[in-house]
């Protein structure tokens, strides 16, 4: 349990939050708390200060533009799950959001918090990587934008400095020539994932013109499957899943990144991941935009 000496700051603006972070290297930022509070309870995180964003109203909005949506750091997964505009323009994000934990967790947990927690079993990280999400990060030293690939360094490790605050996620929006697929393997409903697959395919007529494929879960971090993306370009929709399955050797490229969880055998992962991703490709080409 956290010690009685733990301090809590509740700034009213991102600038106030950044000022607190600039003053200590032993702070943790609290968004929805669905990851951090259990870490505090278990003693896996031992900050001196928790900086809660619960009073930062300006971080609680979704702004849907022409080509991108800005999702503030305090926007909950539940909000995303039920947002009609996001369902229309980035349905992959909404599909992944619905898989996160339980309604209880989604009522408080946030997209940005999920990305910054960098749990390999995350649903939102593979979807965000597939979509090309960028995270806006601010500190007293300035601001920068990070791709998911740049943000997530490994299991529970990000590239954020101690004094940096992630304030929003920029989600690219696509038109209806793009279709999505999302699959999650877990033992129980609500669990973090053993494996995740996120797919975006752009169709030209009956052909896959372009594919963005991400595999996550039992990996050090979610990754694009470049070999498979190349193999699918120009393939007829009806052949896409079969081609994806036939190109299953991509899993060998990721051999060093497989991260067995101590329960799921490595041989099982190596056998199922190609089928899992191929099925997700099949879902994408068959599904609605």
């Amino acid at each position: 349990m956290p010690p009685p000496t733990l301090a809590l700051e509740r700034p009213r603006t991102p600038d106030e939050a950044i000022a607190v972070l600039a003053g200590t290297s032993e702070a943790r930022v609290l968004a929805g708390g669905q990851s951090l509070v259990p870490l505090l309870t278990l003693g896996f995180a031992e900050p001196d200060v928790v900086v809660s964003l619960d009073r930062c109203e300006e971080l609680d909005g979704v702004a849907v533009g022409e080509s991108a949506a800005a999702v503030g750091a305090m926007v909950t997964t539940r909000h995303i799950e039920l947002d009609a505009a996001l369902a229309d323009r980035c349905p992959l994000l909404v599909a992944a959001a619905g898989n996160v934990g339980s309604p209880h967790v989604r009522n408080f947990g946030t997209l940005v918090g999920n990305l910054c927690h960098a749990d390999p079993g995350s649903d939102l990280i593979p979807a965000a990587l597939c979509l090309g999400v960028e995270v806006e990060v601010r500190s007293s030293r300035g601001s920068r934008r990070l791709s998911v690939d740049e943000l997530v360094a490994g299991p529970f490790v990000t590239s954020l400095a101690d004094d940096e605050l992630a304030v929003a996620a920029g989600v690219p929006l696509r038109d209806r020539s793009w279709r999505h697929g999302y699959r999650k393997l877990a033992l129980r409903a609500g669990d973090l994932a053993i494996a995740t697959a996120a797919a975006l395919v752009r169709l030209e007529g009956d052909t896959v013109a372009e594919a963005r494929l991400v595999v996550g879960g039992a990996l050090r971090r979610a990754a694009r499957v470049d070999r498979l993306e190349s193999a699918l370009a120009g393939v007829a929709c009806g052949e896409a899943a079969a081609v994806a399955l036939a190109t299953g050797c991509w899993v060998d490229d990721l051999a060093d990144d497989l991260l067995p969880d101590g329960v799921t055998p490595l041989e099982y992962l190596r056998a199922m991941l190609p089928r899992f991703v191929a099925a997700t490709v099949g879902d994408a080409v068959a599904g609605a935009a």
Partner: protein
Amino acid sequence: MNPTGSAQPVRLLVNGLHHEVTCDAGDTLLAVLRERLELKGTKFGCGIGYCGACTVLVDGAAAHACCLLAATLEDRRITTVEGIGDGAGDAVQEAFLEAGAVQCGYCTPGFVVSVKALLAANPAPSLAEVHEFLTGNICRCSGFAAIARAALAAGGDR
């Protein structure tokens, strides 16, 4: 802003009543409900947001009380199982009894609060919707089926 880290007074609105409690920054809502407010209906199961035994409503939305810091909830309307039915009987509680959905009873407060939240948002859920919404609640005694029957009975499936 107070960086001293010592216990602070926190004003919480629980089941319609305002309470001024003294708690540490790291105190979860679960700990404050049980240990400061003596509201023992909300249970400690896993303590890390999986089992749902600590389910409460925050502004009507179901939440794991073990995953919330009490000091961040000053302006929120909190409802615990003690605030369900006001002692005069409640359709969800009665449906649980009629369906035989209570064995050891440890998970029951969490399930009752969750079902209240479900029915407030979706008065006549399907079985699939019941299962999906109750992802955050675990029962180790029963086969869960009676709980689902209770939820459907309390809803529009009478």
